């Protein structure tokens, strides 16, 4: 049997490298071993989510359209039901970085296509990923590269490629932005067909040499007749680039950093850790997988439990997983896709190309009410399979009777395990004590005690500590 520390560590890994796991699964994985599990996450062999099932029960989540909600439901379904959790979590990571929004793109199916790129090659070579994203129709439209012409360059994509997708502010000049933009002239989407009367036509990438600026460019100290891929080759060789991506990975998977726009002013909280990731990234030839392996096996990762404020997506998907709510097709799916948005993270519709501000900025009094209620609604529902299984474990942990303290400890263990500050723990304990000792002896006792477990889980969900993951 894995010991307590193994369980805690495996839970941590699964929260960060996925969206959490049930205790049964954590025990199985801990038994199998930590490094082995990291390998499995990085090289998943389980089949991808069966999209035909989605087609069948939720056809609206698969058809072209302008509204964001069906696409959000589609992605939520994949996050909840995936057996390749790191692949899905990494797709969310890249969505944070390459934040593309339906508010402008207005073609949610094309956003899903972009997310699929993240799934397919997000763990592979970063240079290739940049090239694919540069050719992605949703991105081209989002950052106006279809308006970037030989005779009239538009700098939107060129600037964000450098500022937000690779180097960070302060690592290029305005001239570099202009030259970079010129190199991407002619990278556009195929003729946009009018939507009416036949509906939406898919966008495709199109390179138009006649609209490409073939004159010489000087970019980051290099001079030549550069096209877009040449620019990307130069960009990824910059030390600023590897540091930027390493810091992004650290911020998303390890611990909350300051907001991205401050990165050229504020140093990382753990410069050594970021440097370790950066070195792996560079020495592997810009492969993501080795960086993930180094990261998850590092001490700084293992010591980072509860150092990050959970994102709304992590709250929603994690809670659905923990409680076994909404597994598989479900009439409520299409509404559920909007839940992260109610808490401030509308997936496929970030507020801008800068993506979301993370960490403590996820929380304000409005979003906190939504977060607490979303989790409490479910963990206090003693009919949900995941909650039933928690109750069963609590009931079996200590014979037929248990102290208030044991109840609190069991609940904290099964909700994480998560450690509470002394102050919070005292409140949880007083609450449990005010209701006396717990018995599981008779059927009536069991029902009453189940209720108490549900309420205790809800109270734990309401704590400050539980906002971290």
């Amino acid at each position, binding site marked *: 049997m894995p010991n307590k520390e193994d369980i805690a560590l495996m839970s941590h890994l699964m929260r960060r490298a996925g969206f959490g796991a049930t205790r049964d699964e954590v025990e199985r994985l801990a038994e199998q071993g930590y490094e082995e599990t990291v390998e499995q996450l990085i090289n998943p062999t389980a089949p991808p989510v069966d999209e035909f099932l989605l087609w069948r029960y939720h056809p609206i989540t698969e058809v072209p359209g302008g509204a964001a909600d069906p696409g959000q439901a589609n992605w939520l379904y994949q996050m909840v039901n995936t057996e390749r959790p790191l692949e899905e979590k990494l797709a969310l990571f890249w969505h944070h970085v390459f934040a593309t929004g339906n508010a402008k793109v207005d073609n949610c199916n094309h956003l899903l296509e972009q997310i699929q790129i993240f799934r397919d090659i997000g763990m592979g070579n970063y240079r290739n990923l940049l090239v694919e994203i540069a050719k992605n129709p949703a991105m081209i439209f989002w950052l106006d590269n279809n308006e970037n012409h030989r005779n009239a360059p538009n700098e939107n994509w060129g600037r964000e490629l450098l500022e937000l997708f690779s180097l960070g502010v302060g690592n290029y000049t305005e001239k570099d932005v202009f030259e970079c933009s010129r190199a991407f002239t002619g990278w556009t989407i195929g003729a946009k067909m009018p939507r009416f009367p036949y509906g939406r036509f898919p966008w495709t990438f199109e390179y138009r040499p006649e609209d490409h600026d073939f004159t010489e460019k000087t970019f980051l100290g290099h001079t030549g007749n550069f096209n877009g891929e040449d620019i990307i080759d130069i960009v990824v060789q910059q030390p600023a680039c590897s540091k930027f991506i390493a810091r992004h990975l650290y911020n998303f998977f390890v611990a909350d950093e300051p907001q991205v726009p401050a990165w050229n002013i504020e140093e990382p909280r753990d410069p050594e850790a970021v440097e370790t990731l950066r070195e792996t990234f560079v020495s592997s030839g810009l492969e993501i997988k080795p960086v993930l392996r180094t990261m998850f096996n590092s001490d700084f990762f293992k010591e980072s439990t509860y150092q990050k404020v959970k994102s709304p997506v992590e709250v929603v998907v994690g809670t659905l997983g923990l409680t076994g709510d909404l597994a598989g097709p479900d009439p409520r799916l299409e509404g559920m896709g909007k839940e992260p948005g109610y808490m401030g993270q509308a997936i496929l519709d970030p507020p801008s190309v800068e993506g979301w501000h993370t960490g403590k900025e996820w929380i304000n*009094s409005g979003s906190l009410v939504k977060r607490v209620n979303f989790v409490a609604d479910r963990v206090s529902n003693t009919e949900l399979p995941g909650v039933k299984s928690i109750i069963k474990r609590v009931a079996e942990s200590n014979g037929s009777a248990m102290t208030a303290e044991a109840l609190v400890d069991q609940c904290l263990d099964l909700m994480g395990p998560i450690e509470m500050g002394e102050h919070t723990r005292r409140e949880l304990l007083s609450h449990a004590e005010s209701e006396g000792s717990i018995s599981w002896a008779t059927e009536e006792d069991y029902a009453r005690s189940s209720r108490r477990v549900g309420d205790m889980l809800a109270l734990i969900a309401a704590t400050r500590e539980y906002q971290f993951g």
Partner: protein
Amino acid sequence: MTTNGNSKPPVLVVLQLTGGNDYFNTVIPYTDGNYYDSRPSLQIPQDRVLKLNDELGLHPAMAPLKDKFEQGGMAIIHGVGYANSPRSHFRSMDIWHTCEPDTVGTEGWLARAIRDIDPESENPITAVNIGQGLPRALVARGVSVASVADLSTYGLLTSIEEEAQRTRMLERFANMYGPALGTGPVMEYLGQTGLDALKGADILKTAPDTYSSSVEYGASPIARSLRDVATIHTADLGTRIFYTQHGSFDTHAAQATTHAQLWTDVSEAITDFWDDLREQDADENVVMFLFSEFGRRVRDNGSGTDHGAAGVCFAIGPKVKGGWYSEYPETRAEALEQGDLVPNQDFRGVYSTILNDWMKLDAKPIVNGQFEAPQFIKTNGA
């Protein structure tokens, strides 16, 4: 900010007509041949139009609003929009919400207003959204807005059914979020935020207790939402901005019945709301503003109308200088852009009037510039 006596601070109620309201069939140019020519299937016969003057009238479902107009308490602002309408719901709504037609904006215009009204976030319910989630207009970093799907069930830990148990748990919540020194800035921030959330919920919870009214609202969702607005407003809790919405006005098909029903519900709910406020002597410091993300195509499609450009806005309240503002866009085929009415009043100018003249804020940094602002708010003493 004082909330007592006769100097109550101004309150704004925004009602969003989601989906693109058909301007052409809302304010109808009933003497214009172009109207009848381009609306073979959806024209309202002249004798059914609720005539407001020699040229224009309202949709027959809007009788209560006709009364408002005739009593001088409603401004109709023509041709509102912005150049190069993308005719996309999402993009257009975004533009209206952020005042950024050319780039993707990150901050809502009302969120910026809230920041000016309550810079220290002293009142967690300075702004209240009645509905699910938060419209982008109310979103900005550091700005808290209460979002209430249903006032009667709003609060924390609402799934705990037994009331006494829930009360006990909320007491624990308050204790847990209370000052915990030495736990770091993020935990301290969370502590304060949790207490704010609880305070907001506690304040809002009191509203229904103090509310009593002889007005019986209809059963439509917008009637329920406006009743919640009235309940919170009359409780005098310091809320300055209310936001709610109704729809969908996206009438591509079967517009005749849908559009009539939508305006019946909206008009009746608005009338009930104002009757309620009047009865409780709480109407003098309120202005209501209605907008939609765009108007619809001039020519109907046989059953409905497709996405268009220029739309119409309404401002209602005792302090509104009733009447017409801006001009009805030209309806001649040659004057249309891609078959749509061309906006001649920038929406940011309309916002500017609300912000400058009503909310007494500096509109320029909120709407990102200076725009021609129709003067539909009564000047002091008028």
